[in-house]
């Protein structure tokens, strides 16, 4: 008892500082996250309940509270706001599905093709990384040059070299702009799928392939019976990440088309950006952003629930 009393204060003090220490050194990160992410997000939800336009924005804290009016005007299907958002939503979903599919398939093909060691494999791996490592504005602007109607490489190859069409198509306006958008997004992001799948492949024990080989399984059989099932947990996360990136993509359409993107390629982030900064209707813009977040949350939670249930059953 007496010894405990003798040394009592010191451990107590040390315990206090030891308990406070992790919070102290975490504080800067916490403050930064709060200031730039959490607080603005809450402010954004608050903004979505205000009538914020070019007249009220100067004194936005006192802008009239309109409750769910902004959401109502987004949900009123015959309004032009709702029509525009719905169209952009459809474009974004289609874009995300196609981009994720393309990125995943290219990544899988490359990872499987480079799985077996050969001379020059390291060089190819580094080469395939380059599109992902390149600053996006450089690569998308290069694509913008390639897709120019009169001076671009794409039309030179299609029309002048191969003679596939007589008329030089436009790639940055109209229907074709959607195709351009998907191709550019896939070019830029597929290396990430390649990297992730490569890392996943390295964790598959080689004995599995050796056993399959003894059983006389061909390459397709090995792909569908070993590689893909073993990659399942990796692919689950990968597909989700790719989908969220594509759905949130602002950079590709903005850099490729500028503020006035063609409607065929106006992804939802750019759509909200345009309608917010062109009309200064921030209340409506915030309401659309909140709906976009809710949609992503529902998709993410639903997707994970389905995937996990299947894993539990399987």
């Amino acid at each position: 008892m007496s010894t405990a009393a003798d040394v009592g204060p010191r451990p107590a003090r040390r315990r206090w500082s030891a308990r406070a220490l992790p919070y102290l050194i975490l504080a800067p990160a916490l403050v930064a996250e709060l200031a730039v992410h959490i607080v603005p997000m809450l402010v954004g939800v608050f903004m979505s309940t205000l009538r914020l336009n070019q007249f009220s924005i100067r004194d936005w804290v006192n802008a009239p509270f309109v409750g769910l009016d902004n959401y109502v005007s987004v949900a009123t299907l015959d309004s032009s706001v709702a029509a525009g958002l719905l169209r952009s939503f459809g474009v974004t979903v289609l874009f995300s599905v196609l981009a994720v599919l393309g990125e995943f398939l290219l990544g899988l093909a490359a990872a499987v093709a480079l799985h077996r060691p050969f001379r020059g494999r390291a060089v190819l791996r580094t080469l395939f990384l380059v599109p992902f490592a390149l600053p996006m504005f450089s690569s998308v602007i290069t694509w913008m040059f390639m897709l120019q109607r009169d001076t671009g490489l794409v039309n030179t190859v299609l029309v002048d070299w191969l003679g596939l069409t007589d008329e030089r198509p436009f790639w940055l306006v109209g229907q074709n702009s959607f195709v351009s958008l998907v191709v550019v997004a896939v070019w830029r992001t597929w290396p990430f799928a390649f990297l992730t799948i490569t890392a996943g492949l390295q964790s598959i024990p080689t004995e599995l392939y050796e056993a399959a080989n003894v059983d006389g399984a061909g390459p397709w059989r090995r792909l569908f019976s070993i590689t893909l099932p073993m990659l399942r947990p990796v692919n689950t996360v990968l597909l989700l990440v790719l989908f969220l990136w594509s759905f949130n993509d602002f950079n590709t359409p903005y850099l490729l088309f500028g503020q006035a993107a063609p409607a065929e390629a106006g992804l939802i982030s750019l759509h909200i950006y345009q309608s917010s900064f062109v009309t200064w209707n921030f209340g409506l813009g915030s309401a659309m952003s909140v709906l976009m977040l809710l949609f992503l949350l529902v998709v993410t939670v639903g997707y994970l629930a389905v995937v996990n249930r299947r894993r539990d059953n399987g």
Partner: protein
Amino acid sequence: MAESGWARWIRRAVITALAVFTLVPLYVMVSSSVKPLRDVQGPFTAVPSTITLQPFVDMWRTVPLARYFVNSAVIALGAMVCSMVIAILAAYAVSRFRFRGRGTFLTSALATQMFPGILFLLPLFLIFVNLDRGFGLELFGSRVGMVITYLTFALPFSIWLLAGYFDAIPRELDEAALVDGTGPLGALFRVLLPAALPGVAAVAVYSFMTAWTEVLFASVLTTSETRTLAVGLRAYATQSNVYWNQVMAASLVVSVPVLLGFLLLQRALVQGLTAGAVKS
């Protein structure tokens, strides 16, 4: 494991196709940057008629590229340094202490990464403008404002990656330092950091890259004085008479620092980037 003939050919075809797909835009960028102006004004030519380095000289005069460059460099370096210090401290807390809210912090930091940027942009814009008006804090259109914004973008990834590196270092090492009388921060900076150097370097490159290449926030929160390359380069490419050879030269020049950093630290970065998917 023998590979049958046709499987080998399919593999070669896949690799060749992907290599061509990857290389064509890179070739266009590099070859066009050394073309004289007349070469890029007509239909595309595969080979430059003459090779000239003039675009690399002229590009600085056509738009205020040097100003964009300085802005990007200052903002990216500032964001990199701040974000590294904050991430190192936070990763130490997460890796070496068990405290309440630890899991919540890690998960929510990761979750913010997945939220649409536009959701933060509108409020952040209003907050910046109001801080300026109300308190005279010049965040809107200033480099400081951009540094504050960007330092958080790289934080979650940096914390996760560094915490992973710290976790792999045996606790006995820093506990020995603590017994020797060094404080916890001494143990962090003298023992843990040197041992986690590849991770620290990867985090540095990643946070620099994030700030150097960000477009959405830069397009709204900067003014013509503080415009960064990410936004300025696009202005270059949308002038009425575009000098594509200069645009390509500029794209090449601004890519080199980031590309070199990424490729040098490939291993650590790739490990960090793919860990999220592979571990869970």
